[in-house]
């Protein structure tokens, strides 16, 4: 029940968004249904332990954060050979059947209050379509947010045996007084034997509240890989998820975050093994400085039909400051015994011995610590196939260390 923070959105505003883009009826209906559902929908789930709520979403003032009518952004697309990369509204015109069929097929448009809000209000987005048997060039999308609030939508469809790598970056442009709100929904459909790597690098301004859901469906022998880098925002709640629906499908979810000041990152990696011979690997590394706080949830869910499953999860957090907090909950839900599953999580500080070793070689302690932090990210950076994403992430880490 979201009686607490009902943004003042009218049906007319939603109709205006839809009419401006000359949307087909089904999309308008989807938006209006989502709007109507807001009263009934719950906020996204957050972890609670006795006496504590790990992320508080209910106190946010959505009334002032969300302004449906002034959404503004700049978007850059780099054309990629082999892939159709279209703004969402062009895609709706040019591939009406594809979009209607796939829209909302992976992420429930009414998954929770914030997703439904996004469904009702999104004004921008991208559809990437890779035809059967095509290995596309890398797709790069850069979104710069220039308004109080922005709602973004991405759909990736890789047909049978298609291959594509996508890099989507979010940052903030023009300054706005006070807080802002960014919300994104990403749906990935990987057909039989298709391979999708979707990388996201979030570097929004530190006045921005950020809610994102990224989810993929993997068909037989398909591979869905997510890379989720979080550097910016005041508060981020980001869920990255794969359903391994097809036999022999696999997923890798790689996360990296670096929080400072009062940043709060609530990051989840979840995978559902729903068929035979599936493999998953979840790897997240994060660094916390100042009063930053991280919340991590990892879920490996093995269904009873998932014979011969392999599922692994690792999460490591490095704390640079006594004022920071790292919370973690790596979960295993296993319903088939023909499974090899493990997870591990660690929290710690910079290793004294390593630091001592480096300072004894003449490095000053600050520089040595920086190098150890950079080194800490190496295992996740190595997972990143796109050079540009890896370099961006390295630069942002280096920049944060300098500040």
């Amino acid at each position: 029940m979201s009686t607490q923070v009902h943004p003042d959105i009218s049906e007319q505003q939603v109709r205006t968004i839809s009419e401006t883009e000359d949307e087909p009826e089904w999309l308008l209906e989807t938006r209006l249904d989502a709007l109507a559902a807001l009263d009934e929908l719950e906020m996204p789930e957050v972890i609670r332990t006795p006496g504590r709520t790990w992320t508080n979403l209910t106190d946010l003032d959505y009334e002032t954060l969300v302004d449906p009518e002034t959404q503004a952004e700049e978007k850059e697309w780099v054309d990629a050979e082999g892939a159709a990369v279209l703004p969402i509204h062009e895609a709706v015109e040019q591939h009406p059947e594809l979009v209607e069929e796939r829209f909302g097929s992976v992420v429930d448009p009414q998954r929770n209050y914030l997703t439904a809000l996004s469904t009702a209000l999104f004004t921008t987005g991208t559809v990437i379509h890779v035809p059967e048997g095509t290995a596309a060039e890398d797709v790069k999308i850069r979104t710069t947010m220039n308004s109080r609030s922005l709602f973004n939508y991405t759909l990736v469809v890789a047909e049978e045996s298609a291959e594509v790598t996508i890099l989507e970056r979010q940052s903030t442009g023009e300054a706005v007084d006070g807080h802002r709100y960014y919300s994104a929904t990403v749906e990935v459909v990987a057909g039989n034997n298709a391979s999708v790597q979707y990388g996201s690098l979030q570097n929004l301004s530190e006045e921005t509240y950020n809610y994102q859901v990224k989810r993929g469906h993997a068909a037989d022998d398909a591979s869905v890989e997510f890379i989720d880098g979080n550097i910016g925002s005041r508060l981020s709640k980001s869920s990255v998820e794969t359903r391994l629906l097809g036999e022999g499908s696999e997923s890798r979810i790689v996360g990296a975050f670096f929080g400072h000041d009062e940043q709060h990152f609530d990051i989840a990696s979840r995978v559902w093994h729903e068929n035979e011979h599936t493999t998953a690997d979840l790897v997240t590394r994060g660094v916390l400085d100042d009063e930053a706080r991280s919340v991590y949830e990892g879920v490996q869910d093995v269904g009873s039909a998932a014979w011969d499953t392999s599922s692994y999860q690792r999460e490591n957090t490095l704390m640079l400051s006594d004022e920071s907090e790292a919370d973690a909950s790596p979960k295993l839900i296993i319903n088939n015994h023909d499974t090899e599953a493990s997870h591990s999580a660690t929290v710690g500080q910079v290793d004294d011995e390593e630091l001592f070793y480096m300072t004894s070689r003449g490095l000053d302690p600050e520089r040595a610590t920086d190098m150890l932090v950079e080194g800490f990210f190496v295992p996740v950076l190595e997972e990143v196939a796109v050079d540009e994403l890896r370099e961006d992430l390295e630069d942002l880490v280096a920049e944060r260390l300098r500040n």
Partner: protein
Amino acid sequence: MSSDQDHLQETDTEARFEFKKEEKSAFETEKGLTEETVRLISEDKDEPEWMLERRLRALEQYQEMPMPTDWPGQPDLSEVDIDEIVPYIRPDIETRGGAEEWEDLPEEIQDTFDKLGIPEAEKNALSGVGAQYESEIVYQNMQERWEEKGVVFCDMDRAVQEHEDLVREHFMTTCVPPSDNKFAALHGAVWSGGSFVYVPEDTTVEMPVQAYFRMNSEGMGQFEHTLIIAEEGSEVHYIEGCSAPKYSAFNLHSGGVEVFVGENAHVQYSTVQNWSKNTYNLNTKRAICEADGTMEWVSGSMGSKATMLYPSTVLKGPAATDNHITIAFAGEGQNIDTGAKVYHNAPDTKSTIESKSISKDGGRTNYRGLVHIADGAEDSKTNVECDALMFDNESTSDTMPYMEIQENEVDVAHEATVGKIGDEDVFYLQSRGLDDDDAKQMIVAGFIEPITEELPIEYAVELNRLIELEMEGSLG
């Protein structure tokens, strides 16, 4: 020691737990829970006014609190209707507070504990024994040499009368207040029986003390309270055993355990729980550990229909240590949701949690645990290891740890694995002449060995026997 082992192996373990006795009681309350019931219990026990007040306050809290229903994956408690439970049954015995000779007990109660092997164990390996039948301790005895040193081991009801100041200070105040959870509140309202253990400064009780809890009546609730106070530099090992015959109606066990570990003291609390498979086992167990103290929880959860139990330790003083060893075995129709909680509230505190769970024939085990390291608890260290073994595709094995780390100078590690019984291991053992069942039993015994080796030999043997029983007939 070998003679005890033989004795236990010769006994038919299954028969020892499954038999039931005709229900015979001196006094029992009506089903359900009202202020009237609570007053009756307190009156029947001739309690001081402050205890009645505590009970009534707990009752209020119970009535205000909602049932826990929103924990991810938690056991279904919808069947637990307190209005269907008889919360208090005083068995028909003459000596309140427990006889000191087994012979003084009514024959059927004596026979019950004989079959459970308690008097035999007392002779051989224990410093003291308490035995609870329904809501009351019926037998309590401790070797004189401990009494002379000022060690107290008596039933909780007697402690309220004879050690009033200690009980008043420690009973459901700072350790497990009734507000902790709905079943702690229920417990606070209707508790009866249980043990009180007091170990004076620098005293080591070398052999364990044991309490055995038995529910015999259908549809009853058992709410025993155990309070252990170990003063500075003392050492004690407390063992708890539980069982009940199976009836068609459900039984409820909602015990409360509070342990105060003084500076540099050492307390081990071991439980082998074998409640019948119609019992809801919803307990609250917690220890507060002062500087340099050590708390050890060793738990084997074999029985019950549903268990929700997370023994907790608050590491309050610097350099305090906690060790949790827990094993859960869930067979058909069982949901064993258990784990550990540790709060590191001081510097240099250490905890280790080792959990082993086995699920088969549609049973579910879940490790649910919380490690909290508070700001300022620098140089704390925690290590959690959870291993699960699954027998078949109908069973479920979950792992749900939670870590809250508010201090950076720490060393936190959590690891979990889930796997099936290895075909190769079974094949290897079969090729050495073992049949399939024996091979699997041997693998399970090896899997839980790190835990059984922490138990006194009698209990290790007992646990292995119970597991063998669980596995018999349903394999292959």
